[in-house]
């Protein structure tokens, strides 16, 4: 049975002629400063970026029969419907291909999400990493198109006064995840980080989870008596056993000692399932997910300093258990920073493979995720399913895990998840090396500035959709920024325009996307 996810955010719909259609205004959803009394919670931002490619709309997005509303916008007929959740065998399905453990992907959490179909780049993207978050110069080692070398949206947000104001913080941003080729990350930072026209370079990547955790809490937790008491010997023993069990299963499943190669597929799944449960138990012992307290200093300190050599963040490694572990620990750092309000911005780049059926990313042949999967999604159903499975694994370990951990009370009775905006984008859209119908997901409502619970189809009768420039702009608008902070060279939205994209969809690109 499907459950309709109720829309939970105040919203103004903008009509094609600029007419504003108001829906009921809920006091609790008023933006910062507009509420009577008290201090409004901070808005936080997280960007997830991945090279997952060729996620087909028919599998990634909900079915079109859930689209129940339509409107004219920028010359397009666009549609929306309520996101619906269908639970099958313990898995909560947002769409035919995107589903996760129903105990984690609850209706309440899914109601904080949007799935946006028909967000297109104005350029042929082909290869590259930076454009996923807005740097068009990082287009490709093949230079099909070299756009302006500009900050990615996470960095503009991190350096905006609209986001931090005069608030104290220990880090403006966290940039974590896999180190890509050419020693890069998905994030780019301008020489003047608040100036979108300044020339950008790679944002430093830092995965030292324990060091980051400690750095974030400096000044926020300065009273030793106020610190949570340390674990008891029995609790330490419990944690030690659980960690050892996890390592043992991982060593058997992925170890280089010979046994791993004699484990059949069914038994590999057996071990992975068991590891998932052990990992969940680790979370329970750490106090999350779902058990994270909202008190600064009481979120779990990462059990290891992940760093850049951990197999879970190495881009080409296919150790799924390690990837989950690393992602969990990276998320724990974000949670600590957000709960203490020691930082408000984070970006996480995904490693390439989240599927154990492929042993490497590059190269050729069926064992290569790039060649055997990503490049085959246009012709092979198996490849499509593997790509979808890989994305699901990443989604569950990354965005969903963080959603769960941030689903804790904020200072005004809302949740930190309510006051956060998460965006997720990939390298390619409807097929590999293709710029249309990017697999965009959002979670969290940015403190009431983004309406959630929608599946939107911005494609004009199934053709071209709205621009990525407008999606980036919407994210920054939701974070409280104005167009003057992100428009460049007279282009609406964020980023360059090209050729045929100078029309009606370009002119609205500095507006909040309709339905949001």
């Amino acid at each position, binding site marked *: 049975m499907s459950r309709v996810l109720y829309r939970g955010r105040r919203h103004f719909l903008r009509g094609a002629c600029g007419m504003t259609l108001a829906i009921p205004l809920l006091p609790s959803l008023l933006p910062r400063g507009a509420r009577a009394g008290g201090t409004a919670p901070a808005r936080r931002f997280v960007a997830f970026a991945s090279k997952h490619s060729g996620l087909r709309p028919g599998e990634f997005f909900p079915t079109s029969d859930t689209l129940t509303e339509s409107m004219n916008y920028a010359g397009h007929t666009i549609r929306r419907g309520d996101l619906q959740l269908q639970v099958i065998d313990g898995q909560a399905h947002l769409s035919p291909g995107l589903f996760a453990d129903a105990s984690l992907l609850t209706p309440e959490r899914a109601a904080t999400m949007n799935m946006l179909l028909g967000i297109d780049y104005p350029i042929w993207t082909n290869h590259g990493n930076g454009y996923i978050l807005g740097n068009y110069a990082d287009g490709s080692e093949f230079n099909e198109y070299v756009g302006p070398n500009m900050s990615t949206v996470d960095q503009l947000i991190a350096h905006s006064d609209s986001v931090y104001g005069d608030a104290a913080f220990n880090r403006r941003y966290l940039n974590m995840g896999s180190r890509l080729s050419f020693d890069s990350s998905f994030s780019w930072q301008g020489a003047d980080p608040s100036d979108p026209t300044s020339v950008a370079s790679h944002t430093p990547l830092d995965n030292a989870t324990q060091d980051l955790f400690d750095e974030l809490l400096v000044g926020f937790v300065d009273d030793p008596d106020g610190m949570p008491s340390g674990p008891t010997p029995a609790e330490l023993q419990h944690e030690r056993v659980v960690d050892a*069990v996890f390592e043992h299963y991982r060593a058997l499943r992925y170890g280089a000692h010979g046994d791993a190669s004699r484990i059949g597929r069914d038994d590999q799944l057996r071990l992975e399932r*068991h590891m998932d*449960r052990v990992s969940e138990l680790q979370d329970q012992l750490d106090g999350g997910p779902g058990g994270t307290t909202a008190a600064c200093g009481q979120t779990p300190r990462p059990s290891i300093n992940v760093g850049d050599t951990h197999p879970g963040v190495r881009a080409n490694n296919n150790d799924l258990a390690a990837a989950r572990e690393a992602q969990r620990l990276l998320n724990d750092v974000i949670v600590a920073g957000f709960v203490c309000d020691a930082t408000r911005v984070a970006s996480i780049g995904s490693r390439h493979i989240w599927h154990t059926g492929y042993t490497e990313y590059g190269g050729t042949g069926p064992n290569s995720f790039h060649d055997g999967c990503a490049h085959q999604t246009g012709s092979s159903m198996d490849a499509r399913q593997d790509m979808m499975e890989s994305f699901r694994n990443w989604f569950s370990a990354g965005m969903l895990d963080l959603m769960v951990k941030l689903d804790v009370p904020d200072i005004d009775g809302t949740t930190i998840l309510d006051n956060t905006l998460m965006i997720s984008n990939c390298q390619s859209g409807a097929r590999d090396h293709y710029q249309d119908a990017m697999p965009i997901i959002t979670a969290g409502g940015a403190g009431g500035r983004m309406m959630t619970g929608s599946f939107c189809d911005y494609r004009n009768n199934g053709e071209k959709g709205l621009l990525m420039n407008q999606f980036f702009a919407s994210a920054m608008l939701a974070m409280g920024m104005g167009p003057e902070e992100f428009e460049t060279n007279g282009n609406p939205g964020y980023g360059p325009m090209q050729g045929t994209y100078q029309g009606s969809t370009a002119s609205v690109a500095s507006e909040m996307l309709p339905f949001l």
Partner: protein
Amino acid sequence: MAHDVLQMTFVLALGSVGGCYTGLASISDDTDGIGSGPGGDQQPSPDGDEEPQAGNPDVIEGQWRRLTRAEYRSTLVDLLGISLGASAAQDLVGGLGELESIPEAHVLYPHLDQAVGQEHVNAYVALGLEVGNAVAQDPAALEALMGACAVDGDASNDAACVEDFVEDFGALVHRRPLQGWEHAFYVDEVARVEGEVLSVEPMRVATLVAAMLNAPNFIYQVELGESEPDERAADEMFELTAWEQAARLSYRFWGTMPDAELREAARSGGLLTDEGWEAQVRRVVADRRAATHLTQSFFRRWLHLDDIPDLDNALAAPGFEEFSGDLDIGDDLRESMIDDVLASVRFHVWDEPGTYAAWLTSPHAFARENDLAAIYGTAPWDGVSVPPEPDEAERAGLLTRPAFMLHNQTRAHLIHRGAFVLEQLSCTSLGAPPPDAESEPFEPPEAPSAREYAEARTAAPACAGCHSVINPVGYALAHYDSLGRYMEEEAIFDEIEGTLLRHATVDASGTLPLAGGSHPLESAADLGEVLLDGPGQDCMAQRLAHFFTEVEQARDSQTVVAVAAALMDGTIQDALVEIAMQPNFRQKAWRH
């Protein structure tokens, strides 16, 4: 050959007629696999959830098997018993509070539940810690487990003490010698705390024990084989190692870890020879551990003994007190009835190894309590001497044991009895009754006997297809009342008021319609003869094959044919041996 003909016609008769049940060839989509008990409500049968695998008999399906709760318990007792002694190990394991927290789904055979949920893993970790702390904090247990070096207060030998313990205890936990990386893992990653020297400090030992008891090789029956993966073709079988064969043999037949003799046979390689394997198979099958395990895990489940109605419900039925007459029903009559069936298994399979026919027609009553003995009309059995024999004119072995007659109304439920025999003892698929079967109006005669009621209840033409077969089987068991007492005359009570209405002479006669003819039935003994002509042995072979291979096997599959032949020509133990002698028993399918 005669039995083949009868069996075939028996099945054909059912499969060729339409009737009141939907889907004669299939059973249902019953997901928990619980079928009809002998006296319970009509439920779908466990067999038929999936199509039996005809022509593919050589596959033991599935992933590495997770130990069931009972197997986990038995393994702990045996594992710790090696060092602590059986009694101390029993006490320790008996006191484990977390043991019952290992989830156990309601399935036909416990090991068919192979789910691994969060509660499983949480329970395993908690149990590992509970066991580890229990032994580590008891100096006597610690010394028994690790040796005097663990309690001598001499730190200089602690490292060797831990190393030796890992090697020895690890081999028992893993059910094979540890590999180098496993030894190093336990010593360096678990026992050694952040580079410090090894110590026998109790909490460290407890942590080590807990980690070992959570090893994949302990929780699961890890089967890797020795051949290299590139030598294996997809879906083909590969040979298990000697250690893996030993574990499979002991867990399938004993529900616990290999004993010292099996371990030695694996270590020496003797188990890999045909002679060595057969010798161990025969020893394992004949062992009392097989009797204990298979009686509870196979026979009890196959015969749906746990589905026998609660006697409290029966006693609450109107008129039941008057119906029970001078029978002094004790609190444990239901359990006594179940024990009677299981004792017949132990006696005819292990104490006096006999044939399927000997078990089915056993003249003995295994009634230890007065109430059940009274039902049989014998003296109570002392559990040691030869079990007493009730009047042979009144009893005809397994089919007439009171457990299968117990019902919670004064009127015997002959349809249930017939369906139980057909489904469970002849493996005849009946399918579930149509949804409205129970609510169909019918008019029974005034004060009907059990037979008259059954006839009226199934008189509609739509019911004839199935009940022309079910009913005569049930009628053949009509000489037994709802407490399993033999009767020539049936006392008929008002179902609402509970008052005695009349007596009626029991009519057990019937005709079993078979393709190509019919078979007259006058009694339970006649019904037994039908089963003994082949369907009974074939069905037991199918049930055994399902239990041991975890896949429902077709009647003509290699395993079922071989086991059925053994049941026809030899003892039940011979049939059990035959299962382990099938080539697939020592192999695993390669899926990559």
